[in-house]
């Protein structure tokens, strides 16, 4: 048993399945048709988290910066893939620029936090780098998906105005400036709103983990503050950069709009 943490053995872990059964019971009683999803979700939760625990155990033991970076890039790829799946647009190809931008932006932010703020030694120390990187990726993935979905839908909905500006001598950036602003705002607002509610509605995830792990709450809140600010910065930078890069791909040669 780790100091300060109560271990959960496999028998008691399996007791948690009661909650899945409860959800499945609701689905059956109310004919919600969610039984299959609840079953798959439960199996995936077990499988994915056991897999992650196994991988993290190896990464923590090996302590290789290349392994840490490789795992981070794989997580960034999964985040970009998930975000891509949430965006309903097929006329513009943006998967690869999205992967590359997300990996680059969130790597820089994670390195800044572990190296300059947390002062982990070395900066890639997996116990710090991977959880913090995961939080950056998980939150920014949502903001990027929201921003891009808004970009594409607004470029279609406001195609006549974008085209009108082009006809008056605007370039693609000038013609779509307001659409970009709206998209970036949509991506940033959830993380800003979460700063307003933090500590009032619930004890946030990282802080919960540290408190359960026996940390002093005064230290746990410091980590949580860093995480909240880091997420706001990451969503702002990620939404802005990806929206600007992918906006460019919504126009063909001669600043010709591709979405109408």
């Amino acid at each position, binding site marked *: 048993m780790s100091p300060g943490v109560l271990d959960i053995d496999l028998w008691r872990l399996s007791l948690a399945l009661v909650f899945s059964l409860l959800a499945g019971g609701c689905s059956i009683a109310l004919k919600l048709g969610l039984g299959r999803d609840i079953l798959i979700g439960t199996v995936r939760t077990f499988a994915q988290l056991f897999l992650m625990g196994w991988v993290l155990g190896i990464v923590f033991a090996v302590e290789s910066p290349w392994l840490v970076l490789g795992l981070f890039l794989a997580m960034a790829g999964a985040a970009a893939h998930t975000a891509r799946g949430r965006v309903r647009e097929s006329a513009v190809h943006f998967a690869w620029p999205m992967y590359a931008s997300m990996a680059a932006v969130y790597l820089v932010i994670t390195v800044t936090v572990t190296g300059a703020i947390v002062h982990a030694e070395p900066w890639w120390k997996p116990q710090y780098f991977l959880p913090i990187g995961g939080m950056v990726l998980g939150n920014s993935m949502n903001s990027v998906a929201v921003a891009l979905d808004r970009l594409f839908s607004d470029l279609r909905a406001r195609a006549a105005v974008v085209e009108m500006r082009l006809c*008056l001598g605007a370039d693609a950036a000038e013609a779509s400036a307001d659409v970009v602003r709206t998209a970036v705002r949509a991506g940033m607002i959830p993380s800003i709103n979460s700063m307003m509610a933090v500590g009032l509605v619930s004890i946030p995830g990282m802080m919960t983990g540290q408190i359960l792990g026996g940390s002093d709450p005064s230290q746990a809140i410091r980590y949580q503050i860093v995480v909240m600010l880091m997420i706001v910065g990451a969503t702002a930078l990620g939404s802005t950069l990806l929206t600007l890069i992918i906006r460019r791909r919504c126009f063909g040669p001669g600043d*010709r709009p591709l979405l109408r």
Partner: protein
Amino acid sequence: MSHLALAGVSFAHPGGRPILDGADVSVPRGSFVLLTGPSGAGKSTLLRLFCRLEEPQAGQVLLDGQPVSGLPPAQLRRRVSYLQQTPAVIPGSVRENLLLPFSFKAASGQERPDDAALTALLDSLAAGDIPLDQEAATLSVGQRQRLCLARSLLTRPEALLLDEPTSALDPESASAVLGAAESFCLDQGGTVVLVSHAEFAPARVAPVAYVLGGGRLGPARPGGGRPS
């Protein structure tokens, strides 16, 4: 030399029938072209090719003998101004809408017209009674169409591409818009290409009539047949 020209241009929308199939057209500077044809023939697409809002699959679109694909797009679209069928305005006043073209990099160094010049321009389009401070979104379709034409004229284009400019207008607004197009052609030496699905007889200019249909573009025959 022709002002606007198509040289062997072919175009089809993805999965659609050909709109143009090796079309050759030459529009001299200062001429007034009336383009007719059945609905869905691709008349608007033809206008959009001239200002590079569409790219041909084959052939070249030329402005003063130069391929439009070689010109900076913002400069091209200020020289060849396309007025959309449905007038589009931005949120804000009539004045803000009229001055919109001056907010773009392509207009850097150009002097913004003052209120007196804007009112005089609107007056020439029989819209002088529209207050410059009025919200553009509250204007009628006819007033918006005249506002948009005035805004296009403020970019000092060499050619005006007018896409069904009078289709949704009352007779007074339609007469004002067509009169302005004729003045642009006669008084300023500009080229006009006007798309209309209806018969139309300008009062002051003798238009060159073309018909687009079935993938072919050519001079209209007396009686209104398709080009051979």
